[in-house]
């Protein structure tokens, strides 16, 4: 059970880190008024945020699976 909690915390941390990087990329792109900023915002920022959200959702699913054990 403790291992499960540690695993969830690790995934939450990973999700959080990905989201922080994604949000920072978005913030930089909003300050950088160039056409490339749009691509970086959608490509890098969008990918990092999406990855963070997926890892967070996976941590929820894996927590649900771990509980019955």
């Amino acid at each position: 059970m403790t291992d499960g909690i540690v695993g969830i915390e690790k995934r939450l941390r990973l999700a959080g880190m990905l989201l922080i990087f994604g949000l920072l990329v978005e913030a930089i792109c909003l300050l950088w008024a160039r056409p490339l900023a749009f691509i970086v915002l959608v490509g890098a920022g969008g990918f990092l945020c999406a990855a963070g959200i997926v890892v967070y959702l996976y941590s929820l699913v894996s927590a649900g699976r771990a509980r019955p054990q």
Partner: protein
Amino acid sequence: MPLPTPLLLSLILFSAVLVSVLVALPGITVSQGGKILAFLVLFVLPLLCMAIGVSSEVERSKSTSFCLSCHVMEPYGRSLRVDDPSYLAAAHFQNHRVPAEQACYTCHTNYAMFGGVRAKMHGLRHVYVQYLGKLPQQIHLYEPYNNRECLHCHLGARSFEEGAMHNADPDLLPAVKANKMSCLSSGCHQVVHNVGQLSNVKVWKGDK
């Protein structure tokens, strides 16, 4: 309607700070309140920030300064300041017949169904060509300029409908409205950007 950039940046930084708190203290998600907080901070807020951010960038991509920020478009920007009313783009820009801050987009978007989406797909291609592709020696439109784009504003306008030249021939206006006779290439309004001749023209210094 996109949020103003400072407000959006504040929302992004606020979200990043809250995410940092969760990264530093993931144990708080054990409680019911912590779980709700985690859902808001790790799911709702990032989605909201991305949605508003993308919307804001899409809106910004319509601006004249955005289009002219690519080096290859610089002569087209100068052509908006030609001090000669026969230059169609310059006359529209300088007299605010198009919004000056969205001058390129107003004339070069497509007013048909999904025209805005098509214009943005073209814009993405332009960004690709600018950074990764080979820039053409001379820039051409993808297809001949459609009168629909002119008529979006001019149709029904008195100066257009009752203009002496437009009514000199009774067949002219119907042909123009049906896109059978081009406004630009039929010899009437053929001077548009003419970037090849900009070295010989006087430049308007106003409205800087």
